[in-house]
């Protein structure tokens, strides 16, 4: 989420086909579009390709593009269409259905996502427990702000609350989650590593 006051500027530069405008637009919306793609299509591997494909298609039609006030919303719609096209062409009808359902309302499956995280099992359990203690509202806002990378203005509009309220909800949620990090040492040798290097030492004795 780069400086939003410049968002209009980037879009205009993109429409005019200015040098570097493509890269600029990509950079500004990368996090939000990538994660949206990953969530809706269920594939993290294809997400970047689909975002690039969407932007390229827009670039080719840049002189016909409208002036847009809410660039992110516009781009999300375009990306969504790209995803549907991909799945239609592969004739996966059930997936097309579930994608349409996923469009705005389903909550991100954090549990499934946590399981794939490459962190210590113990920490994952603790963190997920703390995360589950958050209210549905808090979880939703965290997803909107950090996963989908929306600005507080965009969040406020989407949820029908004030910007101040949005801030407070996120702050409260972070307050709960940050406790899982306090008291943990981010440095130091992993004890598992020491134990298992002994296994190799026994190998060297045998050899």
């Amino acid at each position: 989420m780069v400086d939003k006051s410049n968002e209009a500027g980037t879009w205009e530069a993109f429409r005019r086909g200015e040098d570097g405008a493509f890269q600029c637009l990509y950079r500004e919306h990368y996090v939000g579009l990538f994660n949206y793609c990953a969530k809706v299509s269920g594939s993290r591997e294809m997400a970047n390709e689909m975002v690039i494909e969407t932007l390229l298609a827009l670039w080719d039609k840049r002189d016909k593009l409208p002036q847009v006030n809410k660039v992110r919303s516009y781009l999300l719609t375009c990306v969504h269409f790209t995803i549907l096209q991909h799945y239609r062409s592969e004739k996966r009808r059930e997936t097309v259905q579930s994608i349409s359902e996923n469009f705005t309302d389903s909550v991100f499956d954090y549990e499934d996502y946590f399981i794939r995280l490459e962190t210590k099992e113990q920490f994952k359990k603790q963190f997920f427990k703390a995360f589950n203690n958050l209210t549905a509202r808090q979880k939703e806002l965290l997803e909107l702000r950090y996963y989908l990378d929306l600005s507080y203005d965009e969040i406020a509009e989407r949820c029908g609350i004030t910007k101040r309220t949005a801030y407070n909800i996120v702050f409260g949620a972070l307050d709960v989650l940050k406790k899982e990090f306090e008291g943990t040492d981010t440095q130091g040798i992993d004890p598992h590593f020491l134990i298992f290097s002994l296994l190799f030492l026994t190998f060297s004795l045998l050899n």
Partner: protein
Amino acid sequence: MDYQDYGINDFLLDDSFCQYCAGINPVATDFWQNWTNAHPEKASDIAKARSLYYILNGQITPQKTAADYQVMEDVFARHQQEKQLPVKSSNIRPLWWRLASMAACLLVVIAIYLHKTKTQSAQQYVSAPGRKLKVNLPDGTTVILNGDSRLTLGTGFNKSARNVNLDGEGYFVVKHNVAIPFTVHANGISIKDVGTIFNVKAYHADKTVETALIEGKIAISMEHKKEEVLLNPNQKFVWREPSAVSLPAVHPAYEVKTLTHTATDKADATETDWTRERLSFNNISLKELALSIERWYGVKIQIENTAKTEGHFTGSFTHSNPEQVLEALRLSGGLNYRKEGDVIIIY
């Protein structure tokens, strides 16, 4: 703005800090790197804030951003080049020629369309090296795919049969259905099963098939052989593609062994440790170990011929990174490693 008073929350509420974490804004990255260096007493808080940020944003790190950005640059550059190629047009051809070529094109298009509608695109699941993928098949069977693996469903899956093709390693929990048998095909071996939990390790590159049975019963048949091998729980079947050198009489094509258990954990079999986030290996060669590390962590390893390749390795790692595994190798004596760009070299 006195960032020195910032707690973890405050950093995460700051837009430029978030941009720095994600690596999407060079200006923000510059600022925050300099600020962190100038304030070492805040290093711990900043590190924790970053960790929390990555958990919340789906693990989009500066490395990931840079990699995806590079892909975008390449694709865009290519796209721009293609757009600039002049379109050759010639109006010299006579009308009959143009009609004939249009008819020919139409025939080709129809032929391709017919061919495509005949061959159903097979459903495929692919896991990248270093990543596991949990898959729910349409019949209710679940499969956990280990790194660098590909599972393809046969045509008409779950109609009269359930056939799948595996290149890689998968942990199968098969939904019981006597009427529609479930068969895994890998490297020319067929593993037929009715309602069972088993592990298949069959990377095409390895030319071996290992299947470990946890629960139930499976029947294994090999190409060109009439006999079927039946496995009971806690047994495993190991098959090696016969090379031109070894005589079948001396080195049998397959053997049935009991599952191995490491000293630390008698209950669970080593063969399925990978589903429990543990990289385990039992009496394997250095070459096999390197392959395992490559697939598990998604890194590239080269073994120089000066390295001592004799000797077998046994070990078990939980939640480690490749550097820790290699350090253990180094401490065990005789093997060293260095990194050259993206590649780890063992010498």
